[in-house]
């Protein structure tokens, strides 16, 4: 529609019809926005610079003065209500209704910034006192200290053009810090509806009632937990109690190292390679026959009468086992003799698959280690208790932390026997510290100098966006001018606190150029599982 011809009468204006050629010209116009290019660093009074400047200005003016041509049928009609600083829709809303506007008292309204944006997009025609408003009129009337500033509108328009859903921020709808602590559902819709339903009750009473209901499961936990487990663990209760008293730590380390107790011993002759190494071992090794050797302490089991079908020690057993006493067998079975010899041929003789590294380690071990039972003292032992006593006697003292490091005034930062996560360690070293923008923010008194203007929702949510339940905003906008002072830490903290867990972004407007800044907490790295 025409922007310029304001002198026309209403009827003429409204019925203005473009001739086909004019329409064609308007339609085939280039829709490109002229590229401004880089700014010159400083004015140098050269002709060239002046010309370039002029050309850019001209492009700019011609772009602004351009007539916008839209089909009348595509325009949604609305009227400006100056008393409420609001735009009321007169004809059915377009697609924009999904993300913009609101209804009240059965009527549909647009906020002034929304109306202005839609006017610029060519979606809306706003009338005031029966006359249509031009875009320039719109700028003049809609943007005021009562609604929003020009800078705020610029940020709004910029974000809208990028596809974001932008709503005004209303701090009264934000959950209080107390509600946040309680983990109440943060949907704005719910809280509003709840308040509506319980209008009679005061807001404080509703919040306390919800808080008590959430805390009940906590208290009931402690009472019931005991009963349910005692039953089950009854059996091993006494043993566990005993165990906890016991310093099993030392006992454990002592016993775990038994296999290595003789690492310093002379090298054994046990180096025969190939699959027969155990054969030679068995033959040359007196320790093998020790269970029958009279010199050894006798075990309480007499394995000469208790016969196992052992395929390993061929030399001690005949090829056949006598049939066992039926009284020992389940169901008083009677079975015949057992032929061990045939089985001994079928035993697995294949070599263990090992990596070269493992093989080397094994070889090394064999060279250093020898049979436990070659030791006279070990042979005297009759049972595990004696053997373990012997081992712990030989074990000697255990290694602890090097005491001298802790004797002096300056001690190591951390005892390496204590486990510590990377985060804690960095904390201890404390070269850098984590920051928290919200720290101490709750005690700061509010000020009106800075406020959050918009809730911004991501463009990809538009498809299933609901105005009544918009969910959590992606970020919140605070609009600043490039010429006004930078917000101080107090203001930053205050805004961050107001916004809760949603990041606050500062949109800094410099003559229509908008840059976005945000402050982020710094976190030291912590361990991530797994």
């Amino acid at each position, binding site marked *: 529609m025409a922007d310029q011809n304001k002198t026309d009468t209403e009827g003429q204006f409204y019925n203005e019809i473009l001739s086909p050629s004019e329409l064609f010209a308007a339609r085939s116009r280039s829709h490109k926005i002229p590229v401004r290019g880089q700014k010159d660093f400083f004015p140098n009074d050269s002709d060239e610079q002046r010309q370039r400047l002029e050309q850019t200005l001209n492009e700019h003016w011609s772009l602004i003065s351009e007539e916008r041509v839209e089909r009348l049928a595509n325009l949604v009609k609305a009227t400006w209500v100056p008393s409420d600083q609001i735009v009321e829709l007169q004809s059915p809303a377009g697609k924009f209704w999904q993300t913009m506007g609101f209804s009240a008292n059965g009527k549909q309204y647009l906020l002034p910034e929304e109306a202005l944006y839609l006017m610029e997009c060519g979606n809306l025609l706003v009338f005031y006192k029966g006359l249509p408003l031009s875009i320039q009129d719109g700028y003049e009337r809609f943007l005021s200290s009562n609604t929003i500033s020009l800078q705020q509108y610029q940020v709004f328009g910029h974000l809208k053009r990028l596809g974001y859903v932008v709503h005004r921020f209303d701090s009264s709808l934000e959950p209080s810090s107390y509600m946040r602590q309680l983990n109440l559902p943060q949907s704005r819709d719910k809280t509003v509806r709840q308040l509506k339903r319980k209008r009679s009750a005061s807001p404080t009473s509703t919040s306390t009632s919800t808080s008590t209901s959430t805390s009940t499961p906590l208290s009931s936990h402690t009472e019931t*937990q005991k009963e349910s487990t005692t039953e089950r663990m009854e059996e091993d209760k*006494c043993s566990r109690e005993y165990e906890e008293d016991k310093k099993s730590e030392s006992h454990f380390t002592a*016993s775990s190292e038994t296999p290595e107790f003789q690492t310093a011993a002379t090298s054994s002759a046990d180096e025969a390679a190939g699959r027969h190494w155990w054969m030679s071992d068995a033959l040359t090794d007196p320790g093998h026959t020790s269970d029958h050797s009279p010199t050894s302490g006798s075990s309480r089991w007499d394995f000469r009468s208790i016969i196992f079908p052992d395929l390993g020690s061929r030399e001690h057993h005949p090829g056949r086992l006598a049939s*066992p006493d039926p009284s020992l067998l389940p169901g008083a079975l009677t*079975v015949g003799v057992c032929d061990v010899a045939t089985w001994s041929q079928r035993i697995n003789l294949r070599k263990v698959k090992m990596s070269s590294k493992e093989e080397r380690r094994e070889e090394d071990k064999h060279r250093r280690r020898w049979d436990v039972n070659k030791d006279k003292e070990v042979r005297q032992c009759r*049972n595990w208790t004696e053997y373990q006593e012997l081992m712990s006697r030989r074990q000697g003292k255990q290694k602890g932390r090097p005491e001298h490091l802790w004797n002096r005034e300056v001690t190591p930062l951390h005892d390496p026997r204590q486990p510590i996560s990377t985060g804690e360690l960095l904390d201890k070293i404390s070269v850098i510290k984590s920051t928290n923008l919200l720290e101490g923010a709750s005690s700061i008194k509010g000020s009106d100098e800075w406020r959050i203007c918009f809730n911004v929702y991501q463009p990809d949510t538009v498809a299933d966006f609901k105005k009544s339940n918009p969910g959590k905003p992606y970020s919140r906008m605070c609009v600043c001018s490039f010429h006004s002072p930078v917000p101080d830490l107090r203001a930053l903290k205050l805004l961050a606190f107001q916004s809760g867990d949603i990041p606050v972004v500062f949109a800094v407007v410099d003559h229509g150029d908008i840059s976005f800044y945000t402050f982020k907490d710094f976190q030291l790295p912590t*361990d991530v*599982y797994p």
Partner: protein
Amino acid sequence: MATEGVEKTSEDAPAAGKVCTRFDLEKETELRFEVEAGEAAEQVEMELLTGMAEVFGSELNRNKKYTFGAGSKIAVFTWQGCSVNLYGKPEVAYVSKETPMLLYLNTHAALEQMRKQAERDNERGPRVMVVGPTDVGKSTVCRLLLSYAVRVGRRPTLVELDVGQSGVSVPGTVSALCIERPADVEEGFSVQAPLVYHFGSTTPGTNIKLYNKLTSCLAEVFSQRCEVNRKASVGGCIINTCGWVKGSGYQALVHCASAFQVDVVLVLDHERLYNELKRDLPHFVRVVLLPKSGGVVERSKECRRDARDEKIREYFYGFRGVTFYPFSFEVRFSDVRIYKIGAPSIPDSCLPLGMSQDDTQLKLVPVTPGRDLTYHVLSVSSAEDGEEGVRKGIVESPVCGFIVVTNVDTQTQVMKVLSPAPRPLPRHTLLIMDIRFMDMK
């Protein structure tokens, strides 16, 4: 040959539409059959018609139909001879004469002799450790020996140290179970009040120190029990171990032998391991080499993983997923404390000169709840809720039960869990496992 007795009698199949195959077994032979693995596999039913037979030491009832689901590998052994009907289509089914059952029976006889002596002399009964590489039938030999022992009136204890394929509890745990009746032919041993400790991973290698520690814990508790319970003491224990027999795995075996003070070590099908153990264990420990059964099937990685999954499902839904009805509820992060056992080690550069750290494997590290928690199995530790001081005992405390995190909501700081019991959780100390379980099907 027993196989000659096989005759198809499909025309009088009583089970609806299922093929019926009859096998006549001679004495001391066994019928081995495998049920196809996979979702669509048909179950196989087995019925003893005449004679007597047993499955891994548990006697079969005559004219009772036993059902075996997908992936089952069953051996029906008879000492006297019998005839068996199979309904359905097993993947393989054959009769074998070559079974080491007689050797295993002789082993049992020797153990029973030891128990008799222990009873007479008022001492403790035999403690047996079954070792061997993977897929040699360690668990089956354990089951066999336990079933025989129960059948002659003993009360042995099964100590399950195989964290990968636990026969008692969910994988990633070590456990002890008092055996009071022979294993059920279909279900295995009835799991009542087992003592379970959290390990957290399916291989002992991820935290060998913790593994050894838990072995010591179990041994300690078992010894306590033996002191107060004469029957348990005489019954002794049978320890099932992991199939890891090299390096640290071998050291863990030696440690286990020492912790439990074992009297007999049964080495299955690994002569080298046999000789190593003979050398490294004191002379009064009887090390016995036994063959593996020809019926033992090697299991693939997938098969093991499925078996683990099935075990967890069984924990929540009962045998064949029909007996139990688990609960699903939300737990707030603030109500529970989640730990992982084993702290990440400090870089050596942060340590004073000449120091090394070794104890971090047993320490508790708090886990910040996050989305990565989803599907992890968590053990509910029986450690008392409360002060920091309790923290020390968490590693050595048994587990009350397990829950699976099905969903994490970081915004509202709650997680949804699958639990065998309704809310609230009995305790609020949770230990995270590496094992994940997706509740599908």
